[in-house]
């Protein structure tokens, strides 16, 4: 190794150390972003038997709202009115184990405090299903900035990311409307006040 190569190695080591220090003391840059980076899930599309990939930014939502003129669209239109984006990835697989825990962890890493908080986490160990609902709210507790739903089942993985002030009550009440199946009797939901974590 000559002197020049040695300097290059030292500089690279310094840069790496600096980056590690920054990473250690600062939360990830995307942690505060209501729009999640879910590109890491794209390779799963090849393994999936069915894929739903929705990418709607503010412009497309505005365009869509101009065409949501049916009576059936009324409530949906009310929900998307002030949203800045809706991103959904839903993969259905023929057999279990087609996605790894690391795929889900990459999403979890972005849903960090202080702005993101998990309001619901329902696990069914028997069926191996986990559903989590996260909300991003400003530190002063004002309007919701975004929402994320992670639903991980053995043969299905769903990530929903809604950017903007989403009304959860209205979204929940869409059941039985707009072609959305009714899952059964559900008691009126209360507004999220804190974290509710339950395990089955």
């Amino acid at each position: 190794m000559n002197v020049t190569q040695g300097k290059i190695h030292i500089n690279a080591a310094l840069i790496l150390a600096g980056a590690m220090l920054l990473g250690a003391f600062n939360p990830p840059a995307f942690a505060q972003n209501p729009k999640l980076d879910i590109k890491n899930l794209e390779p799963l599309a090849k393994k999936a038997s069915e894929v739903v990939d929705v990418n709607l930014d503010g412009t497309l939502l505005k365009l869509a709202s101009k065409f949501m003129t049916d009576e059936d669209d009324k409530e949906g239109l009310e929900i998307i009115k002030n949203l800045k984006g809706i991103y959904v990835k839903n993969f259905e697989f023929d057999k279990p184990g087609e996605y790894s825990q690391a795929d889900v962890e990459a999403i979890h890493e972005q849903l960090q405090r202080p702005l993101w908080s998990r309001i619901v986490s329902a696990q069914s160990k028997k069926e191996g299903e986990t559903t989590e609902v996260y909300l991003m709210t400003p530190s002063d507790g004002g309007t919701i900035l975004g929402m994320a739903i992670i639903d991980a089942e053995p043969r299905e993985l769903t990530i929903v990311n809604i950017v903007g002030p989403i009304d959860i009550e209205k979204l929940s009440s869409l059941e039985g409307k707009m072609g959305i199946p009714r899952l059964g009797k559900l008691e009126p939901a209360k507004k999220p006040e804190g974290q509710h974590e339950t395990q089955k």
Partner: protein
Amino acid sequence: MNPFEEKLRNALRRKAPSEGFAEKVLARTRGLPQPGEKTWRQFGAFLALPVLRWAAATVAVCLLIVAGLVHHQRQERLRREGEMARTQVRQALRIASVKLNVARRRVQEIGRETPPSRL
């Protein structure tokens, strides 16, 4: 003064123009083509050709048709994109609503199964 000189003097003697000479000259110059006027007149005559009129009208109609087609295609593309976006919104809201309600239902079920003392 010899006779030649006499003839020359008579020929070069200043004479007053006849009455109305200037008006006659002006009247004649008015009828003459001005510089460049000929070209324009020829161009005007060329434009006045019936064939050319038809050609111009055809070009204008073609342009209108092309502009109309482009506008129609743009509107059609916008409509298709809008319809597609609407379908995607409905699909996204359907998935989001279902998953949200599934989570809530699970929590409620667990809440019912858990004895109050353990809550």
